């Protein structure tokens, strides 16, 4: 079903948990549909200095959440905006087709977080 990489991230999620002092958070999914993802970011010099996630969802949702935190950490915001679903799935050695469509939300979550951060910046 799942690759070893997916199982590794599922069993040992990286950067898991709420971030109290985050600069922004991105939310995607809906618990009614079985997935809800929060991506927290802390920004320094237009780079993702710290990142964490909270996820309600299946194994794929958890593993993709964990993976995006690894992929995004240290990247500039512009670079991070370009991370795609396929990038995440690829880094995890693939996802079952059905999961590609429905639980692979982490890149959207990160993008939301960055957009929220930028919107906040503008307001300030």
């Amino acid at each position, binding site marked *: 079903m799942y690759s070893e990489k997916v199982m590794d991230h599922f069993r040992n999620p990286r950067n898991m948990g709420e971030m109290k002092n985050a600069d922004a958070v991105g939310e995607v*999914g*809906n618990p009614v549909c079985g997935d*809800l993802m929060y991506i927290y970011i802390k920004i320094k010099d237009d780079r993702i200095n710290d990142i964490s996630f909270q996820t309600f969802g299946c194994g794929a949702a958890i593993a993709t959440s964990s993976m995006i935190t690894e992929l995004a950490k240290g990247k500039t915001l512009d670079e991070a905006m370009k991370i795609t679903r396929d990038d995440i799935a690829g880094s995890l050695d693939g996802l079952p087709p059905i999961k590609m469509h429905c*639980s692979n939300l982490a890149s959207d979550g990160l993008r939301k977080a960055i957009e929220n951060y930028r919107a906040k910046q503008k307001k300030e």
Partner: protein
Amino acid sequence: MGFKMKYVYLDYAATTPMDPEVIKEIEKHYRETYGNPSSFHKIGQNAAQILEKSREIVASLINAKTDEIFFTSSGTESDNLALKGVAFKNKGRGNHIITSSIEHHAVLHTCQYLEKQGFKVSYLPVDEYGLIDLKELEETITNKTILISIIFANNEIGTIEPIKEIGEIAKKHDVIFHTDAVQTLGKVPIDVEEMNIDLLSASAHKLYGPKGVGLLYIRGHGVRKGWGNYIEPLLHGGGHERGLRSSTENVPGIAGFAKAVELCKRSMKEESEKLIKFRDKIIKEITENIEDVYLNGHYTKRLPNNVNLGFRYIEGESIILSLDVEGIAASTGSACSSKSLEPSHVLLAIGQKPEDAHGSLRITMGRYTTEADIDYFLEKLPPIIEKLRKMSPLKNGKKYMFDPTYEINHHH
């Protein structure tokens, strides 16, 4: 028993390991009873005899007559044959079918198909325990009603319906009564006479028998007073199973089914006592020691081997995946583990919110389940629940903990 690795299998409702005695029986017939029962010669007639002996054994478990047992290839085929066979045969008499909202897909999707063919289907709601309302059932019957199909015991939440009472109502109104007993046969006593069951579906692989063998009990082998022949075949061909199910009979598999039935008959009482003990232990331990958990289904009107628990704030697939990592096989009603991507229609029917329906865990036990298995499961589960809840943004009562002003976008 052939478990390749140390693994605690708690998914007996999905399918059971085969009993070694059943394997031995089938293997014997694989070697000896290879004839085609339709063949005239000794090799064929020998197979025909084994077939009829098996029919006798199976019939006796449910107090049926031998010629009322029709072998099929699965529970699904039996359900399809029962529903379509009766519906199409009795179009002239009426076009109304009554079923429940917690049927297995083999009945549910067949009903939906029949609706497209012009039949009217009433889906009875159920209460929070999954029980249909007998009064409502009776009120739903019209003079166009030809068939009532109600699952004997539900495969997800284990609720046992009031079959005998349904049978009485069906009889009173001269409506044919089918029950899907795929999860029930061999676990709970069934008496088709006492319960006024007209049609009953079962499947061998749920009771330690082989996959690919099912049965349909057909009262009066398809003839009914005032109706004449009341069921037509689904598979046309050489006229096997007295014209109601053509295909060369799978004699070794059927003999394995009969052996499985024999074993169930022998051990049902003892086994169900053991399983009820385990079942109630799991329910007690978990509901006492874990927060925000609830039992799906009924406390007592319940299959001996079924536990179905809802865990708030977390999702079912991630629970069973975590259990799998620990060497425990279980199941969930979560959409994420199903092909349809929809949460269990059964959990929705008992009134659950969709987000809660995603968090269900089904534990089904059986012949080879030991107290040690249960203890192992009870040891492994709590930290899994705790870890997943730590990961989840959902918490008791409040969903959005960070900043409620952020706009919420829903996917789909």
